[in-house]
């Protein structure tokens, strides 16, 4: 049935709605094995996804589960369930719609497995769990359609990889299942279509009308932005003004710590008493729910938030998006602006607020790119194998499997379409025996092979631990923060354990917009009291540090080549002209390297424009070499556009340090001992099932039941360096924080061309780096020294030396 049944036509008409072209287009193509619909928010995208199912169910009814809907957020699944009730009730359709997430009660879950609804709305993790039960074939054998919502977001990380493997599993259980992906704007729709498709079958792309171009401007401020920093405090009065003129505003800011600080800064000047909320990942569930409900009820004028609100319920009344701090990538900016598109045919409004003078240039470049539709995005590599290992174990929980059949099934998943047999077998070996060079675990293996060649769990009881480990989100070690002497009640939020370790009684920090004073740690909880007086120490939340994208970096570099910049504010223009006068302007053809002296230190600045992660990696490598060659580097700092290194000795020929071959040579040894690798290893080992997930409350307050993953990493590095976990870790780290690909790209771009300028003093473009936080001191013997000094002081203080 590819035309809309009359009853639906009548329903649309009764509501005063027209059927959108993309809704009828999707309906027409519903018999494709896979469709990808790219549409802006508010355009009836979700309804478009469900129409084929609703129409089919209205005509034929169903026996068992017919349609699965997957979304990355629990809240979204719940919201869609409420929304679908409207057409179902209005048209009196005999369709049962239910949601199932981590929040669903145990009794409901049991009932859903025994007596499934027609349409089930769920999350990727819940789906993976359902597929791990023995009754999965019975439950899913009747599925005809699967709808993946916000697929652009899922495709960016391991959650999407696991989901695609689950879809491949579903396809094996229900061969006639058809797929629909719903996505926001992306830079490469064809790649996303291949991702969703049941390889080698095709997936058709449908592009909905994107609506009118967004109205993006840079916020005009009374004060000029400062030289450095990420806070944007200077813009507070102007932001408050913009909020007062709009109905409801989302204020996006890059990190949780900055969100806390900005929220506080807003309230300090909020004389009009505008109701403004705060929302980020480290606040307690309670606090976040309160803000979300208030938003839904229209009680808030603005929310200061991080990326946690990038996805979510479509709040109809958001009409302004403010991005504080230069956007790191254009695609994310465009998707965020889409959140303000509450009415399909009205332009979305957005204001950019640069946090410092260089960001003014970045904001201007981002604005131009967004208007030109020039989106960026790093192509995602092959599907990571730690996720594959988990999937193999999850599959074994449900039933014995044949490795030939499973290999073909896994290859049908987009991210794994180029997997080769050897790589797959290594994963099976890891799951079965741990995959060690020292074959020790034959007796205690996790998987055994039967006489018919199929693999199964040696001990069925192992499935319990495997199921508890399902998922690809690995938390960092955090501690809950609670008010002292308050028994029970919700915690204020959580902080990283590393941050908690640096606190001494009396220290103050911000959480949930309140200043609290640290008292002590009791039973894995940070106990605090409320303290309004002092200036807070910043809470350090770990989080991914997004680097400026290659497209944006290139645009900024290009902008700098102009003779003048009439559309930039006066202070920024003056600064750039001064840079030309004292030094040179960095350019794309040759890498600018500046040398200057300041405060008896010798500085070298490399204008790589490769993003902060790549430049930080470069900094670590260069200083390592400099130390070996006797140049005594003391420290370095990197931003998205430059790397500044300082030391005692002047470097006459800095270009020698950036020779491609030399860098690559030193890289492997350097990479092995790196802290970044250990961090990646912990994630990889947890996802693959080597280490158990660290649930809060599972850690005993006294003796540890698990030990640090660092020890496992060091042991493997020493005795089994080519182990599967080490291979996967390397791939993971290279792509992530290390960003080594961007270093080689940068070197290729400049192709050995350098321009070395010896400046009489600090140059305008280098100056902000000197003020930048996050300077890295060179280790070597530094940490032991730190330790020895601190120890000595403590002993003396205690009268023990």
């Amino acid at each position, binding site marked *: 049935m590819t035309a809309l049944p009359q009853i639906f036509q009548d329903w649309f008409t009764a509501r005063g709605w027209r059927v959108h072209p993309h809704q009828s287009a999707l309906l027409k193509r519903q018999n494709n094995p896979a469709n990808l619909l790219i549409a802006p928010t508010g355009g009836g995208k979700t309804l478009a996804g469900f129409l084929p199912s609703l129409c089919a169910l209205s005509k034929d009814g169903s026996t068992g589960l017919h349609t699965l809907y997957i979304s990355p957020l629990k809240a979204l699944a719940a919201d869609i369930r409420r929304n679908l009730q409207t057409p179902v009730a209005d048209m009196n359709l005999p369709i049962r719609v239910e949601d199932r997430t981590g929040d669903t009660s145990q009794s409901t879950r049991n009932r859903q497995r025994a007596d499934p609804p027609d349409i089930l709305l769920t999350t990727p993790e819940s789906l993976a769990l359902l597929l791990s039960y023995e009754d999965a074939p019975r439950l899913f054998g009747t599925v005809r359609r699967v709808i993946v919502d916000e697929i652009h977001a899922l495709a960016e990380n391991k959650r999407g990889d696991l989901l695609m493997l689950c879809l491949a599993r579903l396809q094996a259980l229900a061969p006639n299942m058809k797929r629909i992906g719903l996505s926001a704007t992306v830079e490469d729709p064809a790649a996303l279509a291949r991702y969703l498709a049941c390889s080698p079958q095709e997936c058709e792309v449908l592009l909905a009308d994107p609506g009118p171009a967004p109205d993006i401007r840079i916020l005009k401020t009374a004060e000029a932005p400062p030289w450095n920093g990420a806070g944007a405090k200077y813009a507070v009065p102007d932001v408050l003004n913009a909020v007062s003129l709009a109905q409801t505003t989302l204020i996006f800011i890059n990190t949780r710590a900055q969100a806390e600080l900005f929220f506080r800064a807003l309230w300090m000047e909020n004389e009009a008493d505008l109701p403004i909320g705060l929302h980020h990942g480290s606040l307690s569930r309670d606090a976040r729910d309160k803000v979300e409900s208030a938003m839904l009820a229209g009680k808030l004028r603005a929310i200061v938030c991080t990326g946690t609100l990038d996805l979510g319920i479509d709040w109809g009344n958001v009409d302004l998006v403010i991005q504080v701090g230069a956007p790191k990538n254009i695609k994310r900016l465009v998707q965020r602006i889409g959140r303000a598109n509450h009415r399909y045919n009205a332009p979305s409004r957005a204001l950019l607020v640069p946090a410092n003078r260089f960001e003014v240039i970045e904001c201007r470049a981002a604005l131009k790119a967004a208007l030109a539709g020039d989106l960026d995005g790093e192509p995602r590599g092959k599907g990571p194998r730690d996720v594959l290992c988990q999937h193999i174990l999850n599959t074994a929980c449900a039933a014995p499997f044949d490795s030939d059949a499973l290999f073909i099934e896994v290859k049908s998943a987009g991210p794994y379409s180029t997997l080769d047999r050897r790589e797959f077998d290594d994963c099976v070996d890891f799951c079965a025996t741990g995959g060690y060079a020292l074959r020790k675990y034959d007796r205690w293996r996790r998987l055994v092979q039967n006489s018919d060649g199929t693999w199964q769990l040696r001990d069925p009881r192992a499935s319990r631990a495997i199921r508890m480990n399902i998922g690809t989100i690995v938390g960092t070690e955090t501690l809950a923060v609670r008010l002292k002497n308050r028994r029970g009640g919700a915690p204020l939020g959580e902080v990283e354990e590393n941050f908690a*370790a640096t606190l001494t009684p009396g220290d103050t920090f911000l959480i949930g917009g309140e200043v609290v004073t640290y008292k002590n740690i009791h039973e894995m909880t940070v106990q605090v009291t409320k303290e309004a007086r002092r200036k807070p120490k910043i809470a350090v939340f770990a989080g991914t540090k997004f680097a400026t994208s290659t497209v944006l970096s290139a645009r900024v570099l290009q902008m700098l080549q102009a003779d003048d910049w009439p559309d930039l504010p006066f202070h920024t223009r003056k600064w750039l002209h001064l840079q030309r006068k004292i030094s040179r302007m960095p350019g794309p053809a040759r890498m600018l390297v500046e040398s200057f002296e300041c405060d008896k230190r010798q500085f070298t600045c490399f204008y790589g424009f490769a993003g902060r992660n790549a430049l930080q990696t470069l900094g670590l490598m260069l200083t390592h070499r400099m130390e070996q060659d006797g140049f005594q580097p003391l420290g370095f700092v990197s931003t998205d556009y430059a790397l500044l290194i300082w030391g005692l000795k002047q470097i006459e020929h800095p270009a020698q340090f950036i020779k491609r071959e030399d860098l690559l040579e030193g890289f492997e040894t350097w990479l092995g001992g790196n802290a970044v690798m250990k961090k990646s290893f912990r994630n990889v080992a947890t996802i693959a099932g080597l280490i158990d997930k660290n649930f809060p409350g599972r850690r005993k307050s006294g003796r540890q039941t698990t030990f640090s993953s660092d020890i496992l990493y060091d042991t493997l590095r020493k005795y089994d360096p080519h182990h599967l976990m080490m291979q996967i870790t390397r791939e993971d780290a290279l792509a992530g924080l290390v960003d080594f690909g961007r270093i080689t790209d940068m070197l290729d771009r400049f192709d050995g061309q350098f321009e070395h300028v010896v400046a009489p003093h600090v140059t305008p473009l280098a100056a902000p780096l000197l003020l930048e936080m996050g300077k890295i001191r060179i280790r070597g013997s530094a940490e032991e020294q730190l330790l*020895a000094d601190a120890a000595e002081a403590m002993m003396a203080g205690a009268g*023990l030396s």
Partner: protein
Amino acid sequence: MAGYIFSLNDARLTALPSGALWWSHRGILCVSDLHFGKSDRIARRGGALLPPYETRDTLERLETDILRNNPQTVICLGDSFDDLAASEEMDAEDHLCLTSLMAGRNWIWIAGNHDPGPIGIGGSHKSEIAVGPLHFRHIADLAKTAEVSGHFHPKARLSAKGRGMSRPCFLLDNHRLIMPAYGTYTGGLRSDSAALAALMEQDAVAILTGKTSVAIPMPR
């Protein structure tokens, strides 16, 4: 090769950065809580299949300490094996390495709570031993003094200039020394836990292990 030198009941001892204790006057090297065979025991009980190299790694470090100091006597202060089965199932290669370390030395195994019975490997087996002014046993006894013990796997946490660091450590006061766990894959108990705080006096120090030995007031 730095170490922290101190006195316990007039015995002059050195806490090595590796976590071993060296009594040069008597040529005694003491290590505690080796936990050989831990990965095997975990696998046997249906737990994770961890990299099975910890026994070899512990032996390599022990070999380094032995070659460097050349002790006449080595005291292993309990929980040398993760359980009885581990001692019986030791890898042939690891077994050979261990016996070569034992050759020509007095080797004393003190019984721990994980490996309480006699072990089928050479050397002498005792529940505790007195040597000169000191007593060596697995678990500290608050009623006793001049004692060297293990069992608790102590570790100390300190922060310096915003960086938090945690290291296995010795705990020392006028009456006793509690050794850090020497084995790879041994977790740790924080020095500010109730059990350790109760055992040690107010002016106790924690001697950190790592690249060098450094002492700090015991964190409580």
